[in-house]
């Protein structure tokens, strides 16, 4: 369930520039309505790509989100 939500957020971050801007400005607020566990939410907020990957986040999305992905 959460793996799906994590990847939906990653997908939106890649494909939805307005959402990406909101996330970069205030990640906690941008994710306020998203059904994530506390661990997932905190990994997003501090943008811990390795933790998100270990929680089931797609490697290919994590590498390719403009402004956030890559190495």
């Amino acid at each position, binding site marked *: 369930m959460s793996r799906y939500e994590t990847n939906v957020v990653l997908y939106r971050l890649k494909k939805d520039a307005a959402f990406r801007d909101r996330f970069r400005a205030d990640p906690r607020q941008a994710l306020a309505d998203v059904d994530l566990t506390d661990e997932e939410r905190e990994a997003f907020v501090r943008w811990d790509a*390795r933790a998100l*990957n270990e929680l089931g986040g797609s490697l290919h999305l994590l590498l390719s989100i403009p*402004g956030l992905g890559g*190495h």
Partner: protein
Amino acid sequence: MGRIVYAAAMSHVLYPDYYGENVGPHGRRMVEALIDVVRAMGRTLAAAAPDALVVIADDHLNVFSFDAVPALCVRIGRSVSRMVQDDAIEFDRALEGLPERYPVHEDLANSILEKGLQSGFDFAASWSAPLDHAFLSPVSTLYGDRPVPPLVPFWVNCFVAPQPTAQRCFAAGCHIARVVTEGPWKVGVIATGGLSHFPELSLARVGQSDVAFDRRVVGWMEAGDTEPLTALTAKELHESGSHELLNWLVLLGAVSPARARVRFFGEMGRIDLAALEWGVA
């Protein structure tokens, strides 16, 4: 009677900047050497003058997202777009500057889909899925400035578990070959991706490949030995980072029992790059 007039498989990030940035000069030089080989292969492909080009590749979570992930999907419709990614980084930049739209070979695509459903292959169909680098980086490198023939994009779910089995991908390729034989067209078939990289799809393991695995797999293809290839398990593919070999397995089903000729094999560290052709003409 139709026939497959050209068959090949190759790595699909044919973009020197990507390897230059992530690996360094060694990576850039290696992919540039591969690009030269793929361009030469493209001359052979173009000379075969296929009426259609079946391209078997995977989605990098760009097209199907996580709302629905088809195991195997045929792109139908009249044309197909290049994926658009704003502020693209990494491998998505391989799409920059490529044409925005390509023709689809509607009749062959529909035949593969409809005859598949009639014979036990419950392929998904898409009228709108765009193409990412897995399709267009090889196609654009093969064809250069020449006109690209009508495409039949065919997706394999390589990255979202559970994936289709190696055996099932091979069987799907056998089906594609049967449909080609029953039709009137000359058809090229290419599969893309690999070789091993991103083991376990783990960010911590980016930069690793499995050279021994890749050499073993390529050896089987050279020998025309499909049995160990179709016996590969999801666990083996995942652990070695050979997820995209499933694309190649579809092609192997389409060309079996032909043997592969290795046109390029390079060990980069981050990935092993390869390009192979099968003697089908």
